[in-house]
């Protein structure tokens, strides 16, 4: 079984400059893009626009969804019934054909998400996944020893709480709705959203006070 490369590039960012020769794969990407544009199968604007779409998707969007669910019980019900529709209510459009199931952490259930086969991730609402989510150690072990994986992130789940791992393999994506921390009754929705981290929405850590973004 092949081992995964643990890093994705060969040189540190500080050395990249405009006059640097593009690497082999960058040349390939440029060539393919230009050929497809020449053949009028795509346009340069298609690519430029999609880059803008991608840049606009960050964990702040997911945090907004979580904070709204914490303060608005009816929204929370709609979110749990149809994650994509509820996100679209907040103006978070889905640019692909994926569905979203939101997984609520409770007193009795702790959820975490993984894609063992590739890197499925709720990109429209969280942005792009971190490298560790896409590499072998997390993908291999999250489904077979989730409690040990959680402990590596500093998260200990008591034995009387069920750990529930969702492995994405098809068109459904997942977002964890973490538990609202204690002592936040007087927080505004914006203050609540500022507490919610990407890793909490993957399910590897809880939301706690003192972790404002």
């Amino acid at each position: 079984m092949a081992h995964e490369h643990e890093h994705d590039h060969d040189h540190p960012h500080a050395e990249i400059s405009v006059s640097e020769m593009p690497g082999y794969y960058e040349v390939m990407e440029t060539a393919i893009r230009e050929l497809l544009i020449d053949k009028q199968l795509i346009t340069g604007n298609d690519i430029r626009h999609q880059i803008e779409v991608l840049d606009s998707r960050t964990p702040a969007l997911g945090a907004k969804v979580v904070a709204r669910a914490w303060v608005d019980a009816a929204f929370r019900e709609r979110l749990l019934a149809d994650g994509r529709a509820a996100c679209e209510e907040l103006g978070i459009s889905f640019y692909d054909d994926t569905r979203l199931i939101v997984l609520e952490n409770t007193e009795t259930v702790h959820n975490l998400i993984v894609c063992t086969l590739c890197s499925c991730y709720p990109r429209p609402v969280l942005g792009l996944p971190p490298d560790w989510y896409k590499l072998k150690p997390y993908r291999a072990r999250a489904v077979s020893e989730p409690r040990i994986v959680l402990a590596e992130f500093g998260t200990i789940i008591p034995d009387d709480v069920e750990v529930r791992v969702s492995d994405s393999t098809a068109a459904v994506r997942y977002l964890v709705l973490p538990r609202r921390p204690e002592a936040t009754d007087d927080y505004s929705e914006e203050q609540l959203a500022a507490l919610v981290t990407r890793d909490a929405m993957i399910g590897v850590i809880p939301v706690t006070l003192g972790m404002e973004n």
Partner: protein
Amino acid sequence: MSGSEGLVSRLPNDIGGLTAGSIARVEHELEPWEKRCHALADVLDFKKLINTEEKRRGVEALGSDMIGQLAYYERWIVAFANIFFAKGILTPTELAEKMAEVEARHIAGR
């Protein structure tokens, strides 16, 4: 039993439950070409020129060696090239010539 059946019947990306080491908390800001590659994948899926599942299969088809040695977006772009060849949308010759042209452009521009 030749012993090679496992290589054929188990995809190289099917790693759920395998033994693996500790989780290094690595992440990196995408390089511009990687982001263009990701945008390309989204555009190709939207237009159904190469849907997302075809991309996944194309990456799997690279085989264990390439998967082990190529980085994430490097695997995507090579998979795209192979799929475009299979569909007759690009030929290997035209891609090779365009890649040489792109390189020459950079050398000339220095």
